[in-house]
């Protein structure tokens, strides 16, 4: 596997091979925690952290791991990283930890993390692997935050409500009340809203890509990497 | 601390044993992959895939040495079938190996044939009939339309022609296609 350029890594992670919109990995946390922009952002950042850690570590030890036992080894690395991140969040952002609850430990089972480890980090230098982890995680965060924002906006008529749980009291100022006296549209907050919202986001991305292709701008079509056998996460 | 290490070791041992036992006990003796791939290939023996016949190609695919999109006679449907056997996503036919086309049959121009027997030797399924210095002919039921006999002919008397439809082989067209064909001009007119 040849070393991809930085540009390629970034564009793949953020857009062309986006975890949420193209690879459809990690749907469980994606759908469950995207009820508001801040929740989504929180989980996204946690995932970024985990991906950074795991990709770097796995890349660093890639020469020493026998291919027969690589999956268990990756899992151990990922589980450790996730545990560390969870403890970190618990210590620093207890409010956020309360909101995200079980979904932080569940990052372990996020196919996207193992997928990047297997498909990318195990074959590349640590620096490149770290960049890939960052890009992938940011792409995931982007989707989570957008979907969360969309659902929050339609469901409650606000944006970045409860930002204080992440950014402290200063974060309160971030909260936008887009519509005053909005009755709320509960469906958007309920699980069906997550599915419908994600579907619309994917459709929107495809539309943008199609437009781009039509304009003749050569959008490099990057084949989806075979990350995990199943598109749906385990939990 | 020690008890945690002990517990984990114990767990690892137990599950390792369980896995080992399962892999021995529940081993699935499937058909060899090459056989299943060979069964899907169209058996024209045309060699367009770069292998001398369907069987060698199937074996190469089974060994992972050849891609599965190199069989033009099988067409896209054939590629999909191969992909299903291999458990991978289908992809389009490699244009380097040729293009998909309707079933063909070799026809000998009997006035030109000089009976050189070169085509006889080239035919992978012995579908050409003839002997030295006698005009040859193609047994149409046996011809796979591989086209291997065309090149060796010194007088260019062999041509590939589409298999003629008969009452027995004629197929009803899909109404979906005819309906679309009807709709298109209608929409264009509107």
């Amino acid at each position, binding site marked *: 596997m040849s070393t991809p350029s930085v540009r390629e890594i970034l564009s793949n992670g953020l857009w062309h091979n986006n975890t949420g919109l193209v690879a459809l990995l990690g749907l469980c946390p994606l759908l469950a925690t995207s009820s508001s922009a801040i929740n989504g952002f929180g989980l996204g950042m946690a995932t970024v952290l985990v991906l950074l850690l795991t990709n770097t570590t796995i890349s660093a030890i890639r020469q020493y791991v026998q291919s027969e036992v690589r999956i268990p080894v990756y899992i151990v690395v990922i589980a450790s990283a996730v545990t560390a991140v969870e403890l970190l969040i618990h210590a620093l952002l207890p409010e956020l930890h309360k909101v995200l609850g079980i979904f932080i430990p569940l990052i372990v089972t996020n196919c996207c993390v193992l997928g990047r480890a297997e498909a990318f980090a195990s074959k590349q230098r640590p620096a490149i692997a770290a960049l890939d982890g960052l890009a992938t995680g940011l792409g995931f965060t982007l989707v989570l935050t957008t979907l969360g924002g969309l659902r929050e906006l339609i469901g409650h008529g606000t944006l970045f409500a409860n930002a204080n749980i992440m950014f402290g009291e200063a974060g309160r100022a971030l909260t936008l009340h887009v519509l005053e006296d909005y009755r709320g549209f509960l469906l958007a907050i309920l699980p069906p809203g997550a599915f419908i919202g994600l579907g619309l986001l994917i459709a929107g991305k495809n539309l943008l890509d199609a437009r781009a292709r039509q304009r003749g701008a050569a959008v490099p079509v990057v084949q989806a990497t075979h990350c995990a056998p199943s598109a749906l996460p385990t939990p | 601390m020690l008890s945690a290490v002990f517990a984990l070791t114990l767990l690892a041992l137990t599950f390792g044993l369980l896995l080992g036992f399962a892999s021995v006990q529940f081993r699935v003796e499937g058909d060899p992959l090459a056989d299943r791939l060979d069964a899907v*290939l169209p058996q024209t023996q045309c060699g367009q895939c770069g292998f001398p016949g369907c069987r060698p190609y199937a074996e190469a695919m089974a060994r992972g040495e050849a891609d599965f999109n190199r069989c033009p006679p099988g067409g896209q449907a054939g590629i999909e079938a191969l992909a299903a056997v291999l458990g991978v996503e289908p992809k389009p036919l490699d244009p380097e190996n040729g293009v998909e086309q309707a079933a063909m049959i070799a026809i000998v121009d009997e*006035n030109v044939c000089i009976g050189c027997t070169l085509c006889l030797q080239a035919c992978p399924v012995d579908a050409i009939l003839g002997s030295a210095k006698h005009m040859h002919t193609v047994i149409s*039921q046996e011809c*796979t339309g591989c086209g291997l006999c065309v090149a060796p002919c010194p007088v260019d008397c062999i041509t590939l022609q589409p298999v003629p439809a008969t*009452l027995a082989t004629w197929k009803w067209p899909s109404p979906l296609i005819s*309906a679309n064909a009807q709709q298109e001009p209608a929409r264009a007119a509107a």
Partner: protein
Amino acid sequence: MSVLNTITRLWRFHGGLHVPEHKAESNSAAIEALPLPAQLVLPLQQHIGAAARACVRVGERVHKGDALARADGYISAALHAPTSGTVVAIEPRPVAHPSGIPVLSVVLESDGRDEWGPNSLPTPIEDYLRLDPAYLRERVREAGIVGLGGAAFPTAVKLNAEGAIRVLVLNAAECEPYITCDDRLMRERAHAVIGGLLLMRRALGVKDCIIGIEDNKPEAAAALQAALEQFADDAEDVLLQQIPTLYPSGSEQQLIRVLTGVEIGRSRRPVDSGILCQNVATAAAVHDAVTEGRPLISRVVTVTGSGISTPRNLEVLIGTPLSALIEYCGGYTPRAARLIIGGPMMGLALPGDDLPITKGMNCVLVAGADDVSAPEESMPCIRCGECMNACPANLLPQQMYWHARAREFDKAQQVNLFDCIECGCCAAVCPSHLPLVQYYRFAKTEIWAAEREKKKAEQARARHEFHLYRLEREEAEKAARLQAKKSAAQQRGHEAETPAADPKQAAIAAALARAQAKKAAAKAEATAGESSNELSPEQLEKLAAARARAEAKRLAATQTAGEAANDATAALSPEQLEKLAAARARAEAKKAASAPAQANADAAPALSPEQLEKLAAARARAEAKKAASAPAQANADAAPALSPEQLEKLAAARARAEAKKAASAPAQANADAAPALTPEQLEKLAAARARAEAKKAASAPAQANADAAPALSPEQIEKLTAARVRTEAKKAAQEALAAATAAVAALDADAQEEAPTASPAAEATPAPLTEEQLARLAAARARAEAKKAAQSGKPASSDQEQ
């Protein structure tokens, strides 16, 4: 106890439709005979099964009732001349089939006399109800009768189920709207219908018969009842049963269900349940065939619909163009919008009326625009289930539709696609106007095609494997032959020293060859057994036999050359011996291999014709390889001493070799030689040549077949050989021209004089070629040769433009 006693009630089948009947338009007028048309087109495939094989030739005069084509195989039906006249063509003609693919047809031009031939009618039989069943079946088969209800299955095949049948059902339901031909037939010829039923009953050895007739035909039912009473005792155990009018009760499966309660499905044929169903028109045709000896040459056809001026029923000769029927019925009305063969539910819409009536056509429906559904644009399926309610086969049409549409054919089969009888009920009630039946037909033909393809792939695989095995074997054989040749050459070296070889030695050699051949045969058999375990035992046997024959022949051939030479040399005169010695010396100086052939040429007078022929062939081969100056000379010398026949054959063989050798020869020789020969001479030479070639050709393919075509049936081989011989003959004729030139140039005046008288017997002359054709052929040949020459790097001959 009679089964009839158990029939105490009628059953019903699921679904079915009440479709507007439209019977009144055509059922009031009596059947009229259509005037004799000028030309009849009789497709060889008018029935289910194998197409008939034409047994007349173009230009032949036939009488009414003469056989035009014979049944080819068990499930097939003969075809008879509907009137007297001349066969003007046997060629593919369009028939009523959705594909529009033309079918080989006999075109018969009527002479207007409509006379029966002296031999075309078998003796009429009066007391037909006491006849031997086997004889009855034979008569039905001879008459070419097929099911006239529309399916056109050969009736004789159905009647062969003697002993397996408990109940014979006569289908008088005629459930399709518009059609009334059976109705009229029953009213007017009830006696024949019942007679035919009783005949078939006798042929089958059945006691119980049920006639199922829909209750919308009371007159026909009454007529049948009256006829039954006429037959009195003979018609015992025949039950006339009226059934409710409901489409498709005239379908075999549904009628049997209604009458007996037995369900006949795909998994169970009617015969398995001891029931046989025949149509009323078929019964009448059987009656006519047996009592009058009249083959199936006409049928009753309903011409109806609001698109026709005067709807009625017509007695029509098979092969009559549809347009003649339309014209007789007053032509189209302005409303005519669709031409349908058969009924509106299952019929086939045709683009035009220039097609012939075939045995299975019961109705020509010219529908007005408001009688038939317009090809309306369909809506998506809303899964309303109307189709399911209407389906007489209790299928789920809408699921079949989904799968067929998505090309999921295996799933379509799982929902029992092949149980569909294509009755059209589902599509007739579909609120979305989906062309459901076409989807099913599409799926069915696709599945059949996939199965054919699979079979073909398997066959190809087997043949490829055999091919590889054969190559391997041939490699081994070649090595063996090389070894044999080497030792033979050594032996010949000895023989040359002692020209008068021991005849005993020859005999030993022959015996050896035979033994070898036998061994080879045995080996071939064994290996064939090993190699092709996918072939059926019969195929294997044939293959082995053929292979053994071929092997033996080949061995024998290599052996005979030497053998014959030995024999021949012994009987030579001194002068000849001298010449031979000279020639041989020359030849040996050049190449040892060519020796036998040359010797033969010289020794010819003493050889038997077969030997001569074989030698000539061997010779030709040798000559083609070698520069031919010496033998040619020898030939020229020897020629006067040869008998005319021998001369001819030799000339032919020689010429062939010569023609091939010099690239320029054919064209040039033609140009040069043609003026020197009279046309008759040319023709005769050509003919002689062709005969020789044909003979050889006939033997050669057989050999080749044995090796190459293990899966060919005898008929296929025969056909191929015939085709082959024809082309070969053609080519030979053309080659002969060149041969003649060469021969003529080489021979002196005497020989030239002899040549014209050389072929006293030329009966097997293939279609004589005109000089123009010959010239063209020669030119083509020259081109081909030139190409070859050019490819092999030789300078192109300057004559090639010619």
